[in-house]
């Protein structure tokens, strides 16, 4: 088990090296650069050259890359060219926002998706089943940004039930410890701050969680339908186990295997989907930071944040693999 985890973590090194090379090249091959972003209308060829020289951007790309690698090895991702903030600081303050949003979307997708899929399967061919099939088809096909705009327009702008953007009302004097605002409010007993953060999460979480929700409904439904026809379920019924025990211990548990894999894969997609959702809802997270860094050509922030997202993605996949083993001892890794 431990060897498996270590081996998987070691596999991260070539993945991250490859990714860093691609990122480094991609950013520098794009037209424009930090100098034009910094100078705007006051740019002249001389000033652009002076800035490129000052930031070392006029050196051969491999020299720049080597100096970048040396710093990253010391966990120094550099500072934002726009604000002078260290990238580690950007991650510390912005990543929790994305984590909170992703968790909220996942809670929505799993909390609604598994019961819906399960009950649709139990009422196979019924109204609920047909509704869930049609609903999940719509959920999968609807673009995230369109849903985000729609939700925002209806529930925030027209009805005024929920806030249109942001993570928390800035007039609320809230204490931030972990930068996970809901948790911070609970820890510090500033429950109003916590509730306000929840209200800010509802619409973006629904927008972000709808596609995973639809997928989870479909997978759960299909998986439960498969499992209920298995021999061991019939055996369990024959030996007189109660229906609730059969459903909980035999049907649901076995049906969960493909669902867990799906959730793991969706978690990675949620992280990337957060970029769109955060932009629409002006939700200050890592996605918005990446978006503005692309516009401002903030190389250090882009490289640092994307690398960290890649690490998180790989770690999530590892955790999913390990969870799989817990659910099904037959495939437990050695």
């Amino acid at each position: 088990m431990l060897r498996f985890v270590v081996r998987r973590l070691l596999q991260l090194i070539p993945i991250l090296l490859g990714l860093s090379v691609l990122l480094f090249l991609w950013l520098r091959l794009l037209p424009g650069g930090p100098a034009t972003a910094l100078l705007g209308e006051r740019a002249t060829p001389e000033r652009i050259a002076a800035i490129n020289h000052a930031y070392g951007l006029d050196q051969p790309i491999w020299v720049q890359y080597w100096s970048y690698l040396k710093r990253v090895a010391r966990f120094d991702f550099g500072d934002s060219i726009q604000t002078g903030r260290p990238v580690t600081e950007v991650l510390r303050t912005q990543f929790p926002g994305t984590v909170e949003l992703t968790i909220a979307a996942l809670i929505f997708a799993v909390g609604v998706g598994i019961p819906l899929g399960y009950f649709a399967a139990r009422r196979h061919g019924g109204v609920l089943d047909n509704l869930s099939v049609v609903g999940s088809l719509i959920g999968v096909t609807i673009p995230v940004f369109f849903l985000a705009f729609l939700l925002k327009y209806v529930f925030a702008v027209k009805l005024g039930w929920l806030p249109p953007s942001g993570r928390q009302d800035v007039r609320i004097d809230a204490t931030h410890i972990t930068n996970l605002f809901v948790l911070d409010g609970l820890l510090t007993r500033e429950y109003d701050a916590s509730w306000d953060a929840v209200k800010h999460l509802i619409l973006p979480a629904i927008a972000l969680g709808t596609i995973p929700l639809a997928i989870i409904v479909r997978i759960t439904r299909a998986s439960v339908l498969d499992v209920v026809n298995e021999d061991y379920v019939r055996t369990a019924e024959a030996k007189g186990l109660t229906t609730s025990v059969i459903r909980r211990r035999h049907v649901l548990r076995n049906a969960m295997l493909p669902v867990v894999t799906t959730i793991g894969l969706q978690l990675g997609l949620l992280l990337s989907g957060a970029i769109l959702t955060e932009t629409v809802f002006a939700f200050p997270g890592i996605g918005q930071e990446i978006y503005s860094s692309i516009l401002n050509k903030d190389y250090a922030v882009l490289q640092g944040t994307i690398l960290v997202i890649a690490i998180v993605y790989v770690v999530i996949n590892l955790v999913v693999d390990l969870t799989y083993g817990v659910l099904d001892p037959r495939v437990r890794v050695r």
Partner: protein
Amino acid sequence: MQGRKARRTVILAAVAALSVAISGCAKSDRNSGGGSSASGQTSSKDTLVFGAAGDPKLFDPAFASDGETFRVLKQIFEGLVKTKEGSADIEPALATKWENSADGKSWTFTLRQGVKFSDGTAFDAAAVCYNFDRWYNFKGAAQSPDVSAYWQDTFGGFKANESPDLPPSLYKSCTANGTDSATITLTDPTGRIPAALALPSFAMQSPTALKKYDADNVAAAGDTFQYPSYATAHPTGTGPYVYAGRDEAQKTVTITANPNYWGEKPKINKIVFKVISDNNARKQELQAGTIDGYDLVAPGDISGLKSAGEQVLDRPPFNILYLGMNQKNPALAKPQVRQAIAYAINRDALVKSSFPPAAVVAKEFMPPEVAGYADDVTTYNYDPAKAKQLLAQAGESNLTLNFYWPTEVSRPYMPDPKQIFTVISADLQKAGIKIKPVSKVWNSGYLTDVQTGKADLHLLGWTGDYNDAYNFDGTFFGRFKPDFGFTNKPLFDAIAKADATPDAAQRADQYKAINRQIMDFLPAVPLAHSPPSVALQSNVKNFVPSPVLNDEFALVYTTGQ
């Protein structure tokens, strides 16, 4: 089975213990009394939330050059002079009066008495000279054009230039005449002083705080710069507000009233600048009541906001949008072709269709408020027949031009580049010019291509920094620029001569002549002066929009809750 239960119990107990431990360590930072109500929500009379379009960057004004940073710094710092409310003209601030020597090279400022920096140290002549000498002595990374942008724009170089491209410095020295007067000596006269000193970049900062927080220590580190803590957390000025902190997770910067401010005390205790980069999100937050105002209202939103009862205030337009024409293209080097393009564009219709209601057609390359604006320049009123005739005379009836326009950007002088491009493009095609449209992302190719001379035609403009003609004419046509691709020595010399003329009236006359010369030469077509708008809740009072974005929040107040 029992083992599993026991393990669960241990895990649950550990989680519970950890939660108790964390919540024991986690203390609320809220004040138990004062401005906070029981729900923790402060009264809107105490706090004003303003939606900013971008992150304020660094809080050392000498290193700042963008509008969002200036908006915050303007409340914390003051300069020797300031712009009058709602105008680009200057008036006394930390200097009560100033006079120029006969040769135009020395400026003596009489300083306001009894002013203290927010750290309690005195503002005096020694502090003035400390600030000027600090800028003049910048070294290393601080000499990068993005770091000390306005010093380089106004004074040129430094005491020890580290790049051969830097010009010699216009600044020579500063002398403290006792405590209440300081004389700034220049190497040559310039019309930029004293107007440029109203820029937040030349604000007075506490020498004690600058030294304490190592303000000059900007260091290059790989492909980024590291800034000292003064610039990121300890700005110290004499203004009506003091810096109270930055909440990175919320994307806000907060300032609070300076209790020891020498002037009229601020009406609102706390101002929160909240970064909401999306224009639509800013509008919706205003409508939801979660912010009290925002800048850079999209022209399409103005009528909707007004009919919803919000205030929409226009800034006096202190900007210019022009159609650049690159004379590197031999066809555009012909005066008749440039004139034909000017005649082909229906600028009245363009301004009506693509700009906010208060926008006006530009006659020349500076707004009428600037001293040196000439009313009697050559004009090129819409006349497509004449355009065709001029093209035929030039032998360019079959002309094809690439026309660059920017995407993913909206500038105060150019609210909707695509719409503006579409209208102009249609006009030019009516006159028989074939257009090859080239759209590029503002920061990903557009600026680079235009500023390296790749575009035949392009859209660009400028918002004035201060009220001096050089800031417009000098910026565009004071030297060779690849955007325009021409060398016109008489024009370059005339602009340099006007800038070095100490007498204001003579200088204004010279700029009038220059503007006539420019409009005859026609290196570009001036299109519009467009007023950017500010939207405010209906209960926000006394907000006077500044044409040069020097809005003062100190006298703003709100009525009701």
